[in-house]
Every structure is written in C-alpha cells, then in structure tokens.
C-alpha cells in the first residue's frame, strides 16, 4: 500500500482552492479564487485591508462556508468537514490563548482532545515548547507574558497537533517593529524545522517577502498575481502591485518600436527602452527608486534639482524634479555628504530597470 497518492489519476497540489467565492448579502468578499500550495511550502496571502484575506483563511479553516467553490486538502474535499475535524493548526491575530490555562495546558489542549495519553502528551508539549524556546515558562498564565512570548505559545499550540496545514492570520501585527523582525526570523525557522505547509495572511509586504516561498497578491477579493517574492517585486503584473510592494515611480509613457529596439517617450523626453512583448502605444513605466543611480553630468539619463531629502540611516531618499516628472531616488548611505535641497543631481538607470505595464490597469 505504499503507492504515491495520486488522486483520481490526476496529480493534485497539496492544498487546492478551486473557484472559491464568498458573498455576504451583496458584498463580494472573495471572488473566483484559485490557488495551489505544494506540501511544505510557505505561501503568503498579501493584500490591502478588506481585500478578503481573512475570509479566505476562514473558509479554509472551516469557520466560514464558501458561497461556491471547493477546498481540497491532500486530495480530500474539506467542504463537508466541520472545522474541528479538519485538523489544521491556526494562529489567530489576537493569539486567542485560553486565559484560564497555563502555557502547558494551552499547548496540550489539542492533544487532550485527541485523547493522547498523558505521558506522551507531556513529551510532545515539551517538544513543542522547546521548538519555540519557551521551555522555562510552561506553568505561566498567558496574562503574565509578553506579546512575543504569547505569539510563540500560540504557535506551539497550533504545531503540537502536527497539523497538515498551518494557517496564520496576521500573526505579527500586534508586535512592535523590532520584535516583529525578530519573530519573522523565528517563524521561518520554526516553520522549516516543523516542515509544515503554511499559509500566512498579511497586509505587510516586507513580512510576506521575508517569510514566504511564494506570495499571492489579492485585490478586491481576487487573486491578481502569485509568484516568488523576487518575481512579484521585480515583475509586478499590474501597477497596483508595483506600488503596493515597495516604493516605485509610476510614469505614464508612450512606447515606440523600430528596428534598433524600443523607445520610451515621457512628456517629449525620449529614452531608450527595455525589451518588451508589449505593443507600441500608451504604457505605464514602473521604475524602482533603488535602481536609479547618481552619476556625472555627461553620463546622466536625466538631471534635476532636489526638492526633498530624507535621511533614513542606511539610506538617503531624494525627490528630484526632472523633465519627466518628480522622481523618487534611493541612495545607499556611504557616509559622505549628499546633495542638499536645491542642488542638482544627475541620474542614470539601465533601460531594463524600467518595467512596462499596459496603461489603464490596476
């Protein structure tokens, strides 16, 4: 019986969301949502507030009934399976620890429900607490713990039942910036050690990119792009994504083609363009501020005066008034004095740094 799990002869991903829809009266929360996740993968669901991330997660968890569509986990249709039989590990935004139970009792609760004998339970709880580095706090009550510690307890409680799938709803949003960065690394380590397939919901693009193998970007209830963090950042499918993920300069332009290659025309300024499959005509140019370099007058693609300057510690952020519009420019801090407001800057960039998107989308 050691045959690989082929389902109905079709190779199916570990978790498949098929044409999921959720409507509340006349509000469409999630629309025609398709997503496949492979075993062991860490996928983030990224999108602005109200785009339907939590709703999607709740449907997978079984707390919300989809209006239509199917959720397949490991070849099994979860549609008729109640939430408590799905065996998923869930970390809630508020952690939802049981305030009247100690850390050990919290973590052991899922095992108790599975009628695991007490000595095995103790061993597995100890292992889980070890995984999240909380061995010494087993008999504390949640109230007497810090945000980061509660977060770890919630994670241990979800992982101890060895779930097929781990669901995380904005697990780090209640932590302050420094702790959040620490916990990101922790979360990634724990996920890899446990080897558990994970779906994370977040509206924080840096969190999504730092943690996941793949990012699924949502907007208005729809999935609009799924790719590796590098590709969503470098090859955004729409201008919405290019502005939502990091900073960018969005410029309305016209694309011209001839035998030598492409030309980008912005407000009458002609720049040599990148290779592209797009047809000539109106396009939108997305140019990341970190791809723009400071250079000499003779090598400059374009020049302009600084109208705003912000020092961020590791970098400088300039806003430069140029013939093609106000450009945001990022420059690594090299410990030297940089141009002040009113001074002239000469900018250059590779033609390939400009991403072209069809105009009027997003």
């Amino acid at each position: 019986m050691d045959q690989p799990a082929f389902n109905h002869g079709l190779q199916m991903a570990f978790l498949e969301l098929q044409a999921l829809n959720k409507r509340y009266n006349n509000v469409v929360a999630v629309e025609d949502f398709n997503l496949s996740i492979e075993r062991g993968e860490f996928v983030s669901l990224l999108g602005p507030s109200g785009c339907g991330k939590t709703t999607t997660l709740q449907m997978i968890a079984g707390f919300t009934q989809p209006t239509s569509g199917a959720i397949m986990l490991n070849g099994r249709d979860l549609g008729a399976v109640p939430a408590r039989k799905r065996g998923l590990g869930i970390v809630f935004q508020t952690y939802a620890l049981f305030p009247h139970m100690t850390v050990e009792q919290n973590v052991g609760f899922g095992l108790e429900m599975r009628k695991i004998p007490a000595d095995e339970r103790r061993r597995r709880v100890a292992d889980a607490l070890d995984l999240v580095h909380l061995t010494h706090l087993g008999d504390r009550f949640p109230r007497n713990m810090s945000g980061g510690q509660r977060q770890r307890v919630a994670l241990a409680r979800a992982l101890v039942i060895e779930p097929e799938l781990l669901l995380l709803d904005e697990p780090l949003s209640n932590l302050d910036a420094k702790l959040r960065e620490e916990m990101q690394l922790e979360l990634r380590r724990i996920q890899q050690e446990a080897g558990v397939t994970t779906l994370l919901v977040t509206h924080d693009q840096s969190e999504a990119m730092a943690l996941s193998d793949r990012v699924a970007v949502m907007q208005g209830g729809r999935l609009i792009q799924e790719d590796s963090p590098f590709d969503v950042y470098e090859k955004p499918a729409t201008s919405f994504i290019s502005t939502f993920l990091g900073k960018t300069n969005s410029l309305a332009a016209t694309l011209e083609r001839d035998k030598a290659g492409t030309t980008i025309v912005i407000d009458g300024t002609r720049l040599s363009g990148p290779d592209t499959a797009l047809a000539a005509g109106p396009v939108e140019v997305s140019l990341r501020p970190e791809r723009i370099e400071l250079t000499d007058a003779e090598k400059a693609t374009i020049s302009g005066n600084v109208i705003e300057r912000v020092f961020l510690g590791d970098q400088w952020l300039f806003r430069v008034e140029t013939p093609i519009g106000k450009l945001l420019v990022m420059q690594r801090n090299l410990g030297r004095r940089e141009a002040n407001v009113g001074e002239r800057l000469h900018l250059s960039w590779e033609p390939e740094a400009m991403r072209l998107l069809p105009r009027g989308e997003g």
Partner: protein
Amino acid sequence: MKTTGTSTPWLLSAPALALFAALLLTPLAMTFLLSFNSFSFYGGIENTFGFQNYAEVLSDVYFYEIFGRTFLIAFITTAICALLGLPEAYILFRMKPAWRSFMLLIVLGPLLISVVVRTLGWAILLGNKGVINEFLRDIGLISSPIRMMYTSTGIVIALVHVMIPFMILAVWAALQRQDPATERAAESLGAGPLTIFMRIVLPQAMPGVLSGSLIVFSLSASAFATPAVLGGRRIKMVSTTVYDEFLNTLNWPLGAAIAILLLVSVLTIMLAWNKLVERRYSGVFE
C-alpha cells in the same frame, strides 16, 4: 496649589458624601445604638446599654431556624440563578444582534416592574386557588391543590425570577470581555460544542458567575417584599422577622439587634466569598 489639587475631589463629591452620610450611615448608626437598648412590655424602650438583645437572639433556637432558613433560601436561589443564568446569558450572547437586543429586553424587562407587583403576580399563580392549581385540576392531574403559597419553594421560585436578571447581566459582562477567537481556537483544536462550553466559555465566564452570585445572595438574604407576600407569617425570614419586631411586637431594640446580625453575617459571607474568588482567579484574569 497643591492643597486645592488634593481637596478638589473631596469638594466635588461632598454633596454625594453628605447624602450618603445622612441617609445611610446615620440610620445605620442609630439602629446599631438602638440594638443595645432594652425593652419591656409595659415600659417600652429604655435607654440602657447592654448585650441582652444579642444574647436573646443567639440563645434562641427559634432565631437560628429563621437565620438558617434565610441563608438556605438565599443559597438555593443563588445556585438556581447561576445554573439558569449562565446558559441563558450564553445563548443570548450567541444570538444574532437583532434577536439579541429583543431577547435582552425581555430578560431585563421585569426589572422595570416593582418587586411587589411581580410578587403579587406570583401569588396569583401559586395560590391554592391560583392559576397553576386550577389548571392542573382542570386537566385532571391533581384532585387537591399543591401547596405553593407560604412555602420555601414558592419564595425561591419568585426570588429566582426577581434576581436572575442580575446574574445574567454579570455573566454577560464577563462573556463580553472574552476573546471570541478562543472558542474558534478550541474548535480548530478538535473540541466539540459541549467541550468548548465547559472548558473554554464556562471558566472564562466564572468571574461573572461569582460576582453575580455575590449580588444575588446578598439581595436574596435581605429581600423583604417577596418573603413578606409569599411567606407571610408562616415562612419567616430574617427581614420579615425584623419587620414584625418593629411593627407588631414594637420591640425595636430586638428588631435592631436582628437587623445588625443579618447585616454582619451577610457581609462576612460576602467578604469570605470575595476572598476565595480573588485567591482562585488572581493571576488568571485582569
């Protein structure tokens, strides 16, 4: 500046404090003093000082019976209120908002009607020729009426009706404080509805049940209207006994002593209960 800063709160609350002193502390102090006076059938109240009234109460089995009955009735009322009020509050809590506000109105509505009126209503229902007995006789279930008026059972039934809104409100407040995601967390870990209620909801609602019990117990132990109407002379409770001493026997000092003993014993029970609760739940809830 410093002095005005610290005296301002006192000045602002002075009218309330004056009212409190005049209407509560003064009568209480006078009752306390009265309880040390003596009384003779022909001479009336004499302004002496002694513990003879307390001695009389504490040495008479008759009073022990009344105190015992009072606390038993208060205790049973509290227990029933907790047993009924907890699930009722939880069901209300889980209702859809529109239904919930309607049902809450029904539950709390009785608070708007005078206790005396409600108790008289119970008298109409519970009497030997009352609605319940007439109905049971008409459908042939009983031939002679079940005695419910002038019994402890009747008093408990009516007291539960009067007191249960307080329990529901207290439990409601506790439920409102709990994170609704804890129930879903338990569900995702494999707990069924009953387990969720017993292991997750109930313990978190417990502080509400305990504070509700405190209110219900003290109000029941000192309730007057309900035992007066439904218990009459036959089922005496402490409050009705005090009333009789004051208005029938005219032995005010003895009545005062009984009243003070009731106050002290209820306070003692409440403080002990509160201590117990604090010890049990400190460190768990904020």
